[in-house]
């Protein structure tokens, strides 16, 4: 609040201290004035040298009897000792309780670190506050329906990353969640371990086919996997709202609230996040990117002015789509299909064989030819105008599609746990990267070391499958 010049404060302090010693008499002889000025100057210099106002120390030693405490001695808890310029005159000498002016001790408790019990209590308080906030500021839904989330997945390097992110999003959802995870290539224990950590009710099924390499084929296989899950919903008569959450997508919490408003089938807008490895320093590319004004392409329903569903908007062909990948190990990201499943939400009763009030424009689950005619749940509708646009007529983006994958055959340790810890980090020569690492001088020596340190399990397996088609090595037989 104030930044005084040091000499000024000294001047004030000194004159205050010295005032007690000499009367502030305006009618002094010049010699006396000069004398006091000289003493004043000496005291100032002394204080500057010492770094504090020693007049206080002087007075304190003269008048006080309590032990002196130093400024550095802050590590013990002690009663604050008040150092005043003139201890006989207490400045606020009125009725108790009063606060004294002057120097106070800095109180530090003996163990100035957080207590775990209190940290837990604080988190409980925060959770209670947030619950209250949520209850007040979100529209009250008297009967929240449970969500049935369908996720197709398969074991690969980034599966743990994507699935954990999705899992945490689902764990934060304030409604009941049934998570149906369909795994290409059959159920594996790794996926099962990941999913078990969620604490949600999960249905983990395997799908007989393996996930292919080309993005196009992956797309159609994923669609088939989702239909497989829809059949499970139908057969088990699960009740709730069916959503499609791909494991690499990004979901906002508002999406789950918005989806509760679905009557039969609804759609939100989907943002398409390009994962581009294009060199941005390239002039032509940066020009294109500037022009596009950093708007991300959107796929979703479009309404007319009366907020009625009018048609679809897909930005698949825009110049922002710096994709163009066809295979997983290509650079760049794949273009989305005609319509992504991720933006849709269905009432599960639409899938049941016999449901009350099931509208007539719903086709049976098995009637579309899913092998060819697959692209979106719209195939389940005879009349597409029955689609409900959600999210303020889908003007809000609440879910984003992202397809980021490591190259196939990427080595990764089981469970992402390196045990025993690696010894010498050496560039691996056997991973099938198209561009090889530059030959470093020490790699020649290191190659001989590799044979000796081949306790690493991946090294062994790599020897065996060196010539085989690169396959995902983390697959383990189903343990049921």
């Amino acid at each position, binding site marked *: 609040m104030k930044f005084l010049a040091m000499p000024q404060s000294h001047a004030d302090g000194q004159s205050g201290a010295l005032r007690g010693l000499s009367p502030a008499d305006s009618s002094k002889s010049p010699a006396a004035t000069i004398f006091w000025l000289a003493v004043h100057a000496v005291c100032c210099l002394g204080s500057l040298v010492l770094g504090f106002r020693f007049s206080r120390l002087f007075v304190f030693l003269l008048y006080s009897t309590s032990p002196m405490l130093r400024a550095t001695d802050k590590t013990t808890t002690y009663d604050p000792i008040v150092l005043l310029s003139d201890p006989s005159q207490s400045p606020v000498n009125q009725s108790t309780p009063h606060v004294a002016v002057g120097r106070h001790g800095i109180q530090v408790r003996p163990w100035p670190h957080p207590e775990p019990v*209190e940290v837990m209590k604080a988190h409980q308080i925060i959770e209670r506050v*947030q619950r209250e906030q949520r209850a007040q500021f979100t529209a009250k839904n008297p009967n929240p329906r449970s969500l049935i989330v369908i996720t197709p997945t398969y074991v690969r390097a980034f599966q743990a990353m994507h699935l954990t992110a999705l899992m945490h999003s689902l764990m934060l959802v304030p409604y009941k969640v049934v998570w149906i995870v369909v795994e290409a290539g059959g159920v594996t224990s790794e996926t099962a371990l990941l999913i078990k950590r969620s604490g949600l009710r999960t249905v983990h099924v395997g799908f007989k086919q393996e996930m292919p390499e080309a993005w196009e084929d992956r797309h159609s296989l994923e669609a088939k996997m989702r239909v497989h899950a829809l059949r499970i919903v139908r057969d088990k008569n699960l009740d709730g709202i069916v959503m499609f959450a791909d494991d690499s997508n990004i979901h906002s919490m508002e999406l789950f609230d918005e989806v509760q408003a679905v009557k039969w089938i609804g759609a939100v807008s989907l943002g398409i996040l390009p994962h581009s490895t294009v060199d941005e320093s390239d002039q032509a590319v940066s020009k294109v990117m500037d022009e596009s004004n950093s708007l991300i392409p959107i796929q979703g329903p479009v309404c007319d002015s009366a907020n009625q569903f009018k048609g679809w908007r897909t930005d698949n062909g825009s110049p922002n789509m710096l994709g163009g990948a066809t295979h997983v190990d290509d650079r760049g990201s794949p273009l989305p299909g005609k319509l992504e499943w991720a933006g849709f939400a269905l009432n599960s009763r639409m899938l049941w064989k016999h449901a009350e009030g099931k509208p007539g424009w719903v086709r049976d689950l098995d009637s579309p030819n899913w092998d060819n005619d697959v692209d979106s749940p719209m195939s389940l509708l005879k009349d597409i105008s029955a689609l409900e646009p959600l999210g303020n007529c889908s003007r809000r983006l609440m879910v984003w599609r992202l397809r980021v994958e490591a190259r196939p055959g990427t080595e990764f340790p089981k469970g992402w746990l390196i045990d025993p810890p690696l010894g010498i980090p050496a560039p691996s020569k056997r991973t099938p990267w198209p561009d090889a690492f530059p030959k470093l001088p020490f790699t020649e020596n290191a190659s001989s070391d590799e044979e000796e340190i081949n306790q690493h399990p991946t090294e062994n397996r790599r020897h065996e499958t060196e010539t085989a088609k690169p396959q995902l090595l983390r697959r383990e037989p189903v343990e049921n």
Partner: protein
Amino acid sequence: MTDFPTSSSSSFDVDPVSSSAILAKNIRVGSSSCSPLLIMKMWAFFFVGLLCTHLSPVSARIGASDSSRTQPTERISGSAGDVLEDDPVGRLKVFVYELPSKYNKKILQKDPRCLNHMFAAEIYMHRFLLSSAVRTLNPEEADWFYTPVYTTCDLTPNGLPLPFKSPRMMRSAIQLISSNWPYWNRTEGADHFFLVPHDFGACFHYQEEKAIERGILPLLQRATLVQTFGQRYHVCLKDGSITIPPYAPPQKMQAHLIPEKTPRSIFVYFRGLFYDVGNDPEGGYYARGARAAVWENFKDNPLFDISTEHPSTYYEDMQRAVFCLCPLGWAPWSPRLVEAVIFGCIPVIIADDIVLPFADAIPWEEIGVFVDEKDVPNLDTILTSIPPEVILRKQRLLANPSMKQAMLFPQPAQPGDAFHQVLNGLARKLPHGRSVHLKQGQKILNWTAGPVGDLKPW
């Protein structure tokens, strides 16, 4: 509509079942004397009673808590009653002295920074009173007299006000009004009020010891002081003073609002100095060691988001915090209190004996958390042991728009804002007691008291 007690918002809901049950019981007792007409009358009363009890909770709810779209709030009433929303117009009349512009306009022209710093209330109050409905041009009918002198506008290059000329300026202004108008001498200033928003009010110094030494300017001994400083049993707080919040720019705070449903995830938040190395190199003087104690005890505590940085998201972060620390600095008050109230963060006030703004209209103990300076090492235990219901109630009180409005000085003035609270405070002091008016020839003030330097003309 009778005033319901404000202990909790549920007290507004008159229980329809119980009251109609009581009515029914009375009717049953009364109908033992069974004439059919009497029974008809009883049933009529019963139904009317039932209707009344069902209607009253509805209207009470409309008055009290709002729709589900916004946060439910609670009425605030302090020791003076439910006075936050009082309208001062018609309850008092204020006469504004016309001083030469060297006391106000010219000073402001020399340094327009005075409009934005935390002492700007004196300037805005003058502007408000000039165009307010409580202003009267006839001094004979005025209850209060206002002297517009900007004593806190002599700024250093850094922007901090120097109080060295303020006593002389104030004295010169009072000499002017006492010689040009008879109203000062009539009461020796007892029906005059002055705005002195500086660190220690009318003691006119930024250092506490010096301020205590000087004491309140002798000429202001009988006047009402409207100041930001408030500490009990302190020389610089006079009985009957009105404490106001420091000025905080309303537009700047409005511009940084985030959606209210953003979850509050920070437990305790503070940004500011812990040690003032420039003025207090030894440590222990600044904030009476309290800020340093906060740092030493909680610097590695994940619940405490405290640092000396000056982030650009300061206001947004406050809106994401549950508690905001408002420790004393060189003076006990700080704009952090205003910011905490505006952003709905519960203020944790660490300043012994502090008197908070409008303390008779706002029940601060129910809104904020008071921690003694000696209890600072146990701050985490204190804050985590507050029951969640109490915390939620404090947040409801803070969400009350009249609470937020009372802390602000908006331009143009709006009903319920700090200007109006000052006028309400002045109105509550009316009618003036008999000691206000002096008898003929009686003199109480000593015009030559005070340090010699103050007596020089300005």
